[in-house]
């Protein structure tokens, strides 16, 4: 590489973290190596393993979170840029296979696998793969490249660029969204046991094409159903547990659920943003009051909003009297009534405005509840929700004062960093577990990772005083 190496990590960007707010320090760590030297769109951490998948140009580079170096790469599968990548939840308990799905501007999604057990005996194959990254020093183009990702399956159907994709929490469904204004839901109909080494048995079927948006669907996200509170809610008698949210160029957000007939229907339209909604994040931390997870949305209008499902006491009681568990008795209900089973979502908070241009990415920590945002202005901001006052809590239990949406929450900015990637736009931010030697609590402590137009993938240490 003829380009000079990146400067020392503690550059001017470090000094930019706000001294005025003593509650948090955001310090840049050495960036992932190698530098990609081209626009990188997003970096997705594996839910449990120390791996990070960064989408850039027509490929994905997987980095080790233990060494901050390249682990492996996915190349040759797409004709145009890869916009996004998502890790496949493990299929079957003994499967050591890693699965990653890529969404590309070539209008397809690709399903890839990496066999962590290949040529290895016994357990811990993946851990060893990750550790091999230690020796895989400088530019990673050397001899370690035999460990390749296999391109297993291409999901075709969208007419234009695929912009986002997400697995449902159990991995049964994959949602993809596109500039063609649609969301597709695919169901995994592969051999569920993961036998036969999981080779060549990937099979997915289209179960729904949702085309109610009036513009590009920029992002899709599934509600985290493992939380007890996610199973409560208005529609629980009438719909299956999975809840999908989609954000669009048409400035709206839509909520989708599967009804008793297996039809995916739009149960709510969230209106309020004054520009493209770039994405959304579900609340992954269980709420003390047992309410349904909230939804955070962020937009080209520079704002970040929080939405809360309205709980209507009467409707809940009605549902109880009906007494029918999901998928029994409801199927015969006429369509006109079904249409009335809409959910009401209210905007219950707007985060303090920090960004002066598009907010491209927000991450809501399931561990700490902290929120981080970034965007076109190159600023990284971290926010915390203020503890609600006692009177607010009583309001929440009565649930009546503002239409059952619960108390309006307030948020404060804990800290910001300007020019997080120098003069460049920052496309993505995510909370991510630390596995590097500098971590105080390996595998538990969270850091931030930002991904920019400069091709730099940068980890940030976040310490709360």
């Amino acid at each position: 590489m003829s380009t000079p190496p990146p400067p020392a990590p503690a550059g001017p960007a470090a000094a930019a973290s706000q001294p005025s707010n003593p509650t948090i320090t955001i310090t840049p760590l050495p960036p992932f190596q190698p530098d990609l030297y081209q626009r990188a769109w997003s970096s997705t951490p594996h839910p449990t393993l120390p791996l990070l998948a960064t989408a850039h140009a027509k490929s994905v580079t997987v980095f080790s979170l233990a060494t901050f170096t390249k682990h492996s790469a996915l190349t040759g599968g797409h004709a145009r840029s890869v916009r996004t990548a998502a890790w496949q939840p493990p299929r079957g308990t003994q499967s050591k296979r890693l699965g990653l799905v890529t969404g590309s501007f070539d209008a397809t999604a690709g399903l890839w696998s990496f066999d962590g057990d290949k040529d290895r005996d016994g357990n811990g194959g993946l851990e060893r793969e990750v550790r091999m990254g230690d020796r895989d020093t400088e530019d990673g183009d050397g001899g370690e490249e035999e460990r390749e990702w296999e391109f297993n399956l291409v999901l075709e159907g969208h007419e234009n660029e695929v912009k986002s994709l997400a697995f449902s929490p159990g991995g049964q469904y994959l949602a993809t969204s596109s500039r063609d204004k649609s969301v597709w839901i695919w169901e995994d109909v592969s051999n569920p046991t993961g036998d036969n080494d999981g080779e060549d048995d990937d099979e997915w079927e289209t179960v729904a094409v949702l085309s109610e948006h009036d513009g590009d669907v920029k992002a899709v996200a599934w509600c985290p159903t493992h939380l007890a509170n996610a199973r409560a809610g208005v529609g629980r008698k009438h719909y299956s547990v999975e809840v999908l949210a989609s954000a669009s160029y048409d400035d709206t957000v839509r909520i989708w659920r599967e009804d008793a007939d297996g039809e995916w229907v739009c149960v709510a339209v969230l209106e309020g943003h004054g520009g493209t909604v770039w994405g959304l994040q579900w609340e992954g931390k269980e709420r003390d009051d047992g309410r349904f997870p909230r939804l955070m949305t962020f937009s080209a209008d520079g704002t970040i909003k929080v939405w809360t499902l309205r709980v209507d006491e009467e409707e809940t009681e009605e549902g109880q009297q009906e007494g029918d568990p999901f998928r029994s008795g409801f199927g015969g209900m006429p369509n006109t009534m079904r249409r009335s089973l809409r959910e009401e979502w209210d905007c219950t908070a707007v985060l303090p405005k920090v960004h002066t241009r598009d907010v491209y990415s927000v991450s809501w920590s399931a561990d700490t509840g902290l929120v981080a945002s970034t965007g076109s202005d190159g600023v990284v901001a971290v926010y915390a929700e203020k503890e609600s006052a006692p009177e607010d809590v009583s309001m929440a239990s009565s649930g009546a004062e503002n239409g059952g949406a619960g108390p309006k929450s307030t948020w404060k900015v804990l800290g910001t960093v300007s020019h997080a990637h120098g003069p460049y736009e920052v496309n993505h931010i995510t909370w991510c577990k630390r596995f590097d030697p500098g971590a105080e609590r390996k595998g538990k402590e969270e850091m931030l990772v930002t991904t920019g137009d400069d091709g730099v993938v940068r980890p940030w240490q976040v310490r709360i005083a």
Partner: protein
Amino acid sequence: MERDLDNANPTILNVSQLPSRRRTGPAARHGPDSKCDSIVYPKHHWPYGASSSSDEGEDDAEDPVDAQDVYDLISTISDPEHPHTLGQLSVVRLPDIHLTPTPAELPDPDSLVTVLVELTPTINHCSLATVIGLAVRCRLEHTLPPNYRVDVRMKAGSHAQDDQVSKQLGDKERVAAALENDTLQRMVDKMLETCA
């Protein structure tokens, strides 16, 4: 009067009538390549804190970009359907170029400068407005330093769907995808051939 999608008789300004500082434009300070690849795949690496033009070692780092420089960069772009430049057709006009803040007032080299360019297509339902806007955004993002944020809009009332076109041109993801479309890329390349 104008009919159809194309403007058969646009008003054309003589080159000598165009706003000029009567010196060579700043284009020469930048690379000779006028392709758009850098938007899709920016190749240059700007070290943190370094002045954006320091890598060339040229002394015009002391000479901040102004509206005339921006005009010079984009007025020479060819119209996709007429053998004239956007400057000659008054699609690009000097008073419709705004820089905020003025680059001379920047506290540090990483601070953002917003360049707003309002385009006036030759007729109000010009089907090629989006392509023209794409070429302008492409040209500026490639030639201006990375701390410049380029907003290209249709001047209010100038185009039947000006809000729609402006929104598309402001969408980074759509712009990036458009420039991976071979047909569009070729059109834009051809329009930029006349740029210095």
